[in-house]
């Protein structure tokens, strides 16, 4: 009986190990392997993008979903310890894309429908493209038992009634949060005053922006800064599941901070031209009307001129981040940020 048990355990271990070795399976589409894709974003949207693309291209994508920060870390570690493992990566902020492109690690390509992309989204001199835009708003609970007033601007968030109930993502962990914090820095006239006032107001720091709307509904905090697309998805989810969403999005009087989500194809020595073409097809798909509509339905702003931006209310200013400035000053800014928020 003991021998049988030992045999069974050995068989189990060997079976698992051999199964692990076969993970990089090949698709039935004539290319040598599936495309490895790292993406950040809502799971339903990514699944929808994958299934729609594969309905015509075949089973060619192997997508792993990460948070913006995770995606950024992973791609960077890979680039520094060899070759980037992903064929395509989509999400996070332009800083990482600029850095990788400066190291000549991104594959050059031209969009098939580049003429339909609005001018403001066209990136010149870099080997990546902007796929969608998202807007940051202040979100708050609608439960008046928890919060009786509403802020109208970012500056209001330093008011005492929001002491210990306001949350924002930690800029030292989240790429989007870094963008928010640098915008606050730029908005305050290139000083840390606004960030200092938030710290004095006992701001709660979260690992990612994505967890803020959820945290407000949960009651973990009462208000925070979060992307508007999350509000769109939560509203749809609440309608679908028949509950009242106790969440409200406020467009700040200073304007809404715009975040862009790029995509890039990593250079890889052993990738065939045929597979690189499939990668380019997928990027084209992300910017096609079909791909953009899927993302628009999840709350993101399309970069195409033939899809209306119906999410942005009239009169709201859009604040664009100076990514080049943010990249050059990232180390100094993060050091100042840590001096304020880290203890």
């Amino acid at each position, binding site marked *: *009986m003991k021998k049988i048990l030992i045999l069974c355990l050995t068989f189990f271990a060997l079976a698992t190990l051999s199964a692990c*070795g076969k993970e990089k399976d090949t698709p039935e589409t004539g290319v040598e392997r599936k495309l490895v894709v790292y993406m950040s974003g809502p799971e339903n949207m990514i699944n929808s993008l994958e299934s729609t693309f594969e309905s015509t291209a075949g089973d060619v994508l192997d997508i792993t979903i990460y948070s913006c920060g995770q995606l950024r870390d992973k791609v960077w*570690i890979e680039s520094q310890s060899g070759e980037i493992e992903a064929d395509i990566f989509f999400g996070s902020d332009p800083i990482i894309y600029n*850095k990788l492109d400066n190291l000549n690690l991104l594959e050059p390509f031209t969009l098939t429908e580049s003429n339909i992309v609005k001018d403001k989204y066209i990136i010149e001199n870099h080997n990546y493209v902007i796929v969608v835009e998202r807007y940051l708003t202040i979100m708050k609970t609608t439960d008046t038992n928890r919060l009786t007033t509403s802020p109208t601007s970012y500056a209001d968030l330093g008011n005492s009634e929001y002491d210990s109930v306001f949350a924002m993502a930690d800029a030292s962990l989240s790429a989007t949060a870094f963008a928010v914090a640098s915008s606050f820095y730029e908005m305050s006239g290139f000083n840390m005053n606004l960030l200092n006032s938030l710290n004095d107001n006992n701001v709660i720091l979260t690992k990612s922006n*994505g967890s803020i*709307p959820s945290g407000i509904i*949960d009651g973990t905090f009462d208000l925070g800064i979060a992307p508007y697309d999350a509000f769109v998805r939560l509203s749809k*989810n609440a309608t679908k599941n028949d509950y009242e969403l106790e969440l409200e999005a406020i467009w700040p009087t200073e304007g809404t901070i715009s975040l862009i989500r790029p995509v890039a194809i990593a250079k890889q020595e052993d990738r065939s031209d045929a597979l690189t073409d499939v990668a380019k097809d997928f990027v084209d798909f992300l910017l096609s009307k079909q791909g953009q509509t899927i993302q628009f339905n999840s709350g993101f702003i399309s970069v195409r001129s033939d899809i209306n931006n119906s999410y942005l209310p009239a009169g709201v200013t859009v604040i664009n981040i100076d990514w080049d400035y943010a990249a050059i000053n990232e180390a100094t800014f993060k050091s100042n940020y840590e001096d304020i928020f880290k203890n």
Partner: protein
Amino acid sequence: MASVVLIVLYPILHLLFQSFNDNGILNFSAYGDVFTDKHTYRALSNTIVLQAIVLLITWILGGTLAIIRVKTNYKHKKMIDVFVFLSLVIPPFIFATAMKLFLGNAGFLSRVYYHLNWDYHFNVYSFSSAAVCLSLHMYPFVYYGIKNRLLLIDEDVINSARTVGSSKLYLIFKVIIPMLMPAFISTGFLVIARTLANYSVSAELLLPIGTEVLTTRIYGSLSSLALNRTAVLSLFMVFLSVVVFIVSLWIEKRNKNREMSVSSNQEKPTINLGNFNNKLLFTILSILFFLITILPFITILFASFFKRWGLKFFTGFGEPLLWNHLSFGNYLILFKEGLIWTPLLNSFMYGGTAAIISAFIASVIVYLYNYRKGPISSLLLSISQLPITIPNIILAIASMIAWRTSPFNFYGTSTIIIITYIVLFTPICIKQIQSVSQNLDVAIFQAAKTMGASEWKIYFSIYLNQIRNGLFSGFLIVFLISFKEIPISLLLYTTNSKTLGVLLFAIQSNNYGLEMTSAVAVIVILISLIINLGLIFIKKGLKKYEQTTN
């Protein structure tokens, strides 16, 4: 055995190389950056304070319970064993989630306060919260260590003290506790090492208030895209862990020289509590276990049935009970939509495989060390034990860097997770097997050899049979740890290799809130319990079978 050396040292050497690598240029600037940064020292001092608080709580709680369990005539001893075991099964991250659900801004307690028109001010994000969560998970280590030591204490020593008229308190503080010091020290170092390595609780309860410990600082440095600084911080943490480990070994050795006389399995109560004290203790322990084990579980169980945590309910903010806010929806999503199947299967396969291989490797290493004494076997034992000092997150970063270049390119496959688990688990299995093999009679092996048995025959037929209890407990412990392991899986997973730990840590996002984390937590706890009970059942069955066949 060369493979053992390879899987342990190769990633660490890569980490060392990375610490000198500044975009392809060899320099030492990262060391200067890290050691001149005041935040490094702040994170270090926070880590030390956290360790001290956790150590104090676990010593008091675990030590007291062990003394009650072994040295008193308390009537409900089984109750202590059951609840301590349950605490061990609940991962610290789940304790943190339960704490947020119960004590948080919109937690159960705040809702009760609201109805009573009382102001509720409790900040769940604090040092004390993190310390409590870690302590609740780790006090069982102290409990088991002290309990085992108490069982070895020679009753004559205690009887002598009693004969000379020592009071009960004198007996406890001046006789029993001093004799328990070696156990307090060895379990204390385990608690210190585990607190140093913890990431999930610190990320959940300390990061929101900007308080950094070394593990969260390492994670933060990754986000700054400064891999060399991450490597330096990791090596610094490895250095600290190794120091802790060496000091613990030194103290253990020193105490061994001053060993008291011991006898085996003395479960004879020394302190008579009397009827009143027994009842009083039962009441106190019932309340304690309700607060630290049952309440967290009930909290997450209840929360897991919410369509959305935070919706108004009967103890809610002025709203009546709305039954339509409760449903099995979260479980249906997890099981019917298949969210849980792949992580569950992966955790089972990776944990099981790593546990089997680790137990096998550990048994060979201990065998060589004990019965083929020499510098090579000693070196092998030391190298294979090194990872016990390395926090999971650092093992993950080192693996990420090391296992992606030819000929060892496991990156992006689940093999990398299994290998990292093996590195992490082997020292745990070694500890378990060593504790059993210390009592083995060498003469049996010598006799077998004299009779012409081959080395493999001795190992398979005699040695493995003798150490089966150590093998089994090693397998059980590492299998359980793998089910709730977060940092390694979080950094190394891909689409196909998502584990339960990743699901637990990352499921709270735009679409899902604390209710879904709770549902996953309930499943993790129940599966851990089932596996535990199943394995205990198998062990008993095997024992029974052996008895009948003998």
